[in-house]
């Protein structure tokens, strides 16, 4: 999984039917210190993550489909957790 930070969301009324009503979060990808690594992902929200929160992004189709229970869903990136804290050794 990847660490990300929610920096917005994507509004889309015309989309693949599975995406109807699902929140699409715009997530910067960040490193273990929360620094922007210069990439982003659009991820389907599954935990109610809010703007500015550090999140866990699962970026793999099979896992995403299981998490969302979309057996045939065209989905890869799903927000699967909200990070409370990162402790580095």
């Amino acid at each position, binding site marked *: 999984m990847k660490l990300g930070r*929610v*920096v*917005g*969301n*994507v*509004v*889309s*009324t*015309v*989309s*693949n039917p599975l*995406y109807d009503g699902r929140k*699409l979060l*715009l997530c*910067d990808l960040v490193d273990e210190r929360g620094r922007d690594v210069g990439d*982003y*992902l*659009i*991820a389907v929200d599954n935990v109610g993550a*809010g*703007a*500015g*929160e550090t999140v866990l992004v699962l970026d793999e*189709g099979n896992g995403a489909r299981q998490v969302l229970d979309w057996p*045939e*869903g*065209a*989905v*890869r*990136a799903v927000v699967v957790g909200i990070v409370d804290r990162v402790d580095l050794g």
Partner: protein
Amino acid sequence: MKLGKVIGTVVASTHVDGLEGVKLLIVQPLDKKRRPKGRPVVAGDGLQIAGYGEIVYYVSSREAALAMPQNTFVPVDDAIVGIVDEVHEDPGR
């Protein structure tokens, strides 16, 4: 998924099975501020209605085949999933 902009279409009358009637669009990947970034890709139009100039979001690799409406396997590795109405930026802090 990433943001992209439809900048053209591709017609390929000679193609493998499974691409019959599939609308192919040239999509320029965008960064989160909708600036072009990276090389354009040819994406299957999973919605059949994405038009020239529209901002879309697309999925890659195996999931692209799942995004296509045909009930047969469509051999594409990028496919448009939705049309973007708005990208709302809110860093939250």
